[in-house]
């Protein structure tokens, strides 16, 4: 395993930019939670609370021409990669104008044509799809790009994870696989999920480079993720990043997470990455409290505007719906 030590923190643009994505993601998640409690959202609401630093670090480390497969806790990474708040709100509220047009919802949004792959629910299944995009671009002669796929530690137990990481290693694809080890898969603690000392230890068995990072430390996440992305971009093959952190919410908003043990909540992992980032910005005088308040209220307004707009948008109409799963319409069956 490659030892990646955080370089001395560089105060500056990257952290500030990442922080603002984190903030917007947190507020957006908060809004979805509120809408959920108000009964305004269909289906599950999955939040990234506590994981925004890692997620934002991925998003800001990617170029718009890269490919990104976010998972359920990646609102921050999505925004940083270029997804609009409107896309998120439209999907959560089922707007007919959203990217999924009411066919799929909530965290299952994306725009493959823009490099943002919409997850299917089966854990681990997106990684090999990212491989395929990278493989195809190489075949077409496009170089210098990377693909990032996000995962929880629980998903490392899937066969799909294994097959895809091995495939990327064999093909030497520029895959950056980011595992957010938030200590639980739904309610399942790590000791029922895996038995290795550190998930980063898996890398050597695939012949890929590994990086560990403290997941609620924004500076460290930026360092490590951008370094891994650079390694992949430079042709060093797949990179496995394992971030240690804690989910500061339920698995979904239906879940009170009563199973998370106090020792973890009270440990350094339990500290909120957003608060830590704010403290850092204040301490380093990159921003003052007034500035933070302005950004917060700007973000809230943007989100509220989006919600207000989307609530006026048309909902999907079953009569206008094209009831076929095929693009080759003349081969579709059973339309009326």
């Amino acid at each position, binding site marked *: 395993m490659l030892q990646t030590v955080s370089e001395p923190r560089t105060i500056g643009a990257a952290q500030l930019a990442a922080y603002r994505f984190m903030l917007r993601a947190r507020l957006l998640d908060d809004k979805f939670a509120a809408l959920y409690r108000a009964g305004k*959202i*269909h*289906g599950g609401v999955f939040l990234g609370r506590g994981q925004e630093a890692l997620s934002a670090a991925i998003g800001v480390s990617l170029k718009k021409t890269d490919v990104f497969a976010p998972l359920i806790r990646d609102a921050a990474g999505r925004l940083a990669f270029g997804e609009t708040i409107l896309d998120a709100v439209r999907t959560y509220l*089922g707007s007919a104008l959203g990217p*999924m047009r*009411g*066919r*799929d*919802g*909530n965290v*299952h949004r994306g725009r493959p044509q823009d490099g943002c792959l919409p997850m*299917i*629910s*089966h*854990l*681990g299944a997106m990684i090999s799809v990212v491989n395929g995009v990278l493989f195809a671009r190489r075949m077409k002669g496009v170089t210098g790009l990377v693909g990032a796929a996000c995962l929880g530690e*629980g*998903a490392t*137990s*899937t*066969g*799909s994870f294994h097959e895809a990481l091995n495939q990327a290693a064999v093909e030497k694809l520029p895959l950056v696989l980011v595992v957010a080890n938030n200590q639980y*898969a*739904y*309610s*399942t603690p790590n000791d*029922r*999920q*895996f038995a290795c000392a550190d998930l980063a230890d898996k890398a050597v068995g695939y012949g890929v480079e590994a990086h560990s990072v403290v997941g609620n430390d924004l500076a460290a996440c930026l360092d490590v993720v951008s370094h891994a992305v650079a390694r992949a971009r430079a042709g060093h093959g797949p990179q496995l990043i394992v971030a240690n952190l804690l989910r500061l919410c339920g698995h979904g908003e239906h879940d009170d997470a009563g*199973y998370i043990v106090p020792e973890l909540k009270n440990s350094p992992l339990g500290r909120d990455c957003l608060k830590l980032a704010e403290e850092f910005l204040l301490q380093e005088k990159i921003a003052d409290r007034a500035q933070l308040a302005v950004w917060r209220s700007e973000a809230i307004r943007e989100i509220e505007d989006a919600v207000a707009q989307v609530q006026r948008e048309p*909902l*999907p*109409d*079953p*009569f206008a*719906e094209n*009831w*076929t*799963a095929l693009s080759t319409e003349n081969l*579709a*069956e*059973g339309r009326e």
Partner: protein
Amino acid sequence: MSITYLEAIREAQARALREDPRVFIYGQDVGAFGGAFKATKNLQKEFPGRVLDAPISEDAIVGLAVGAAIEGLRPIIEMQFADFSTVGFNQIVNQAATLFWRTQVVCPITVRLPFGGTSGSGPFHSQCIEAIYAHYPGVIVVTPATVEDAYSMLLAAVATNDPVIFCEHKFLYYHLKAEKLPSEALPIGKARIAREGRDLTIVTYSAMVHEALAAATELATEGWEIEVVDLRSVKPLDTDTIIASVARTGRLLCVGEAWPWGGVTAEVIARVTAEGYGLLDAPPQRLNAKDTPVPYHPNLWAAHRPTSRSVAAAARNLLRT
């Protein structure tokens, strides 16, 4: 006291654990948490060491169950959603389903599949995939539609010496209630006349039984007497009960929540027309979900699957032919 469909599933598991030391439960989050739907609530505490959280490894989960069955245990596997059983599919259809036939060693495993559509659940948490299992030899596929059947058929599944795919409908979990748990029950393989009638037979199963019953109630106000057959198990299929009903009514409508190509409704019609052709006064008809993934938005979802309204409309059409 009243008990829900979901509670009946919990109670059946509690009883199986209590009465048979060979039984254990294995699946994601089934332990202290009690399962994503709480179908195993408190069971780990009540039966220490016999209700175990599994890693996110559906293939290995089923494989382990088969090995334990070879050793004489009776595992109950909970898939978190039926939809995720596709990644444990191979171990079910090629390992579990062939074991007895190949070796004469029985494979008494029960795979619980929380399945079927609920509002807002979308393409990957709503699927009805009973047909892909029923197509394979070597498995039994059951689809309880009532609280009583959820209880008694789960007990029967655990007692059966073959792999049983237990399709429990998530739509029925909370709002379907009964006064008490049954003390006796029809065996697996027998269909049930859920409502008697003489003008038309609706053959259906699982959540659609309730849509069919609602349609029958609606049509009764128009003077039609609709018979509703609840299949209970889709493999084996109780062809005799279906044909006896069609013999009484002369008309057959098959309703399923699954996709239209193949599956239960096609199989029922193929059997009835082969064996009871002369009994039909009109062409047998089917009503299934539409041939697309299950849509997320309730507006689309309500149009994707059959409902009491569309069942009633299909029945009316058929009554007029």
